[in-house]
């Protein structure tokens, strides 16, 4: 599969994955330094999903996101500086400090925002898809959610409606096996969330969510299909979060062997290994990509730390327009 992807695209995907990984590591550190208020839900380990899917999208396509949304923002092309500033509660953040880690949005790149109510983004994605159809564009919507959200009523309502109206929505289930601390097998009789697609008369696909090329290949087909107005699809990406659910969670409900097994399947390592077999990117090139990604993240951190907090009375703005 690697040899089918243009080199520039491969470099771009690797760059984005590095950016997300380094970004999340920095967020983790800054949290430890008491610079991040509230809580954080890190995307580290799941980079291949956001990057694979967003690489298949155009800038004017839309995505909806979740409480674990930093990776989605970065993959869709948001400015790292303003993402980081938002996480630190600064005035220069995307939401002027009103949203924080769980509500980042960048409407200029089609990132329609992260909702922190599990499953709430699904009908909103359906609406964005309907809007594209009614406005006569060929835009597509990718809707990110976890396997936990697939047990919400909104999952059922949204997949049914998108299918009934043949809307251009690519439903992307990031199955990281745990809804907070609850393992999927404790609350569901099925293994593959994608099995549910049949119940809505839409195709479902299971993808190795730690293989960015596999995610990209599947997403590309799904996006092309949606763009031709041939209907929605459910893609389930099997993946794993490196850290706990949130910053305070040591994830003791996961056994060491399982964590180790998934760390070995790390999506960045996977891509590097695949590259090594075909030698598409040289070691020098990879090093440059890595260094550039780290530099971007460092700049974002500096920008965020140096940015001012909003004035307290700004809390009263933006309620109505």
């Amino acid at each position: 599969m690697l040899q089918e992807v243009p080199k520039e695209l491969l470099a771009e995907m690797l760059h984005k994955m590095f950016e997300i990984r380094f970004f999340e590591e920095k967020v983790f550190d800054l949290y430890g330094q008491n610079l991040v208020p509230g809580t954080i839900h890190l995307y580290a380990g799941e980079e291949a999903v956001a990057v694979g899917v967003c690489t298949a999208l155009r800038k004017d396509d839309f995505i909806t996101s979740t409480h674990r949304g930093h990776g989605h923002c970065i993959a869709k092309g948001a400015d790292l500086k303003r993402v980081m500033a938002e996480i630190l509660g600064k005035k220069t953040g995307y939401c002027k400090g009103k949203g924080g880690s769980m509500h980042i949005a960048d409407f200029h790149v089609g990132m329609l925002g992260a909702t922190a109510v599990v499953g709430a983004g699904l009908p909103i994605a359906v609406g964005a898809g309907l809007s594209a159809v009614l406005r006569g564009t060929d835009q597509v919507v990718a809707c990110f959610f976890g396997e936990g959200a697939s047990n919400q009523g909104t999952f059922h309502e949204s997949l049914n409606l998108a299918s009934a109206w043949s809307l251009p929505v690519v439903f992307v289930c990031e199955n990281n096996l745990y809804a907070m601390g609850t393992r999927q097998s404790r609350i569901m009789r099925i293994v593959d969330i994608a099995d549910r697609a049949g119940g809505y008369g839409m195709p479902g696909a299971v993808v190795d969510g730690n293989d960015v090329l596999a995610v990209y290949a599947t997403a590309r087909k799904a996006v092309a299909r949606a763009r031709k107005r041939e209907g929605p699809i459910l893609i389930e990406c099997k993946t794993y979060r490196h850290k706990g659910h949130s910053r305070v969670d040591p994830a003791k409900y996961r056994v060491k062997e399982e964590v180790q097994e998934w760390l070995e399947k790390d999506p960045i390592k996977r891509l590097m290994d695949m590259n090594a077999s075909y030698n598409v990117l040289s070691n020098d090139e990879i090093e440059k990509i890595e260094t550039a990604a780290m530099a971007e993240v460092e700049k974002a951190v500096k920008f965020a730390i140096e940015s001012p907090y909003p004035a307290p009375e700004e809390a009263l703005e933006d309620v109505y327009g």
Partner: protein
Amino acid sequence: MRKISYRDALREALREEMRRDQSVFLLGEDIGRYWGGAFKVTDGLAEEFGDERVRDTPISESAIIGTAVGAAITGMRPVAEIMFGDLTALAMDQIANQAAKIRYMFGGQAKCPVVIRTPFGAGVNIASHHSQSLEAWFMHVPGLYVAAPSTPYDAKGLLKTAIRGENPVFFCEHKLLYPVQDSVPEDEYLIPFGVADVKREGSDVTVVATSFMVHKALKAAELLDKDGIDAEVIDPRTLTPLDRKTLVGSVKKTGRIVIVTEDCKSGGVSAEIAATISEEALDFLDAPIRRVTAPDTPIPFSPPLEQFIIPSEQSIVQAVKEVV
């Protein structure tokens, strides 16, 4: 001037706005050509505008509102109908956590011009799941506007304003109002939000009433007039924003206030109005604030039970006489 029903006035507003602006579309359960809406508000619109813009949905209230939200933040102006106000409970996350908060939590990047129309109110013996008045739930959500027109004229003017606005609007209709006829001009007009209407001027007591209760308050005022009591009847028309200035101004004139709403008493619409008067006009009051509301019960089915809990003209007359 011609007289048309509240139902027809709403339909005219929808029709005019859909003709004016291609981004306006309707969605809801059975609102299309096969039924025309449970209360026939959208009757005939699918025939004029097509099934694409007058969309029958599955019975999926969360998806109806969520879809409207997603369309609104990407450039459309959806008007969603929830068949009965009680069923908004099924869509509460999308209304209260998504539609209302998107502008704010995304720092003003997005607007969410969704209009959610729904009928409230008791009086037709359809019991606890189809008869409530839940306006207060939505008044408690910053980011939402709440309109509750009582006349065909107000209904049309406020709905047009709601559709053209930049904010999510929760638009409360009362099912007993749909057949009510009154004057509505043929020429276009809009009614701004946050402007109460003095439905009857008076000098002895201020009666603030909302939605269908406005009509009961006006009838009560006629009865009181025969006893020499001159009541001023005010309809806030929008509950958010609430025209506190007009309410306070009237109380400063009359020195007395009776608040009439159909919702239950505790934490209700009447409580917000009473609190406003306490904060801003207490020194002008010559008698305690009185509230005429439903008691804190669900809405019962059997006619004598239902009639017992809904405020009546007589209960309004009695409350006024207690303060005058």
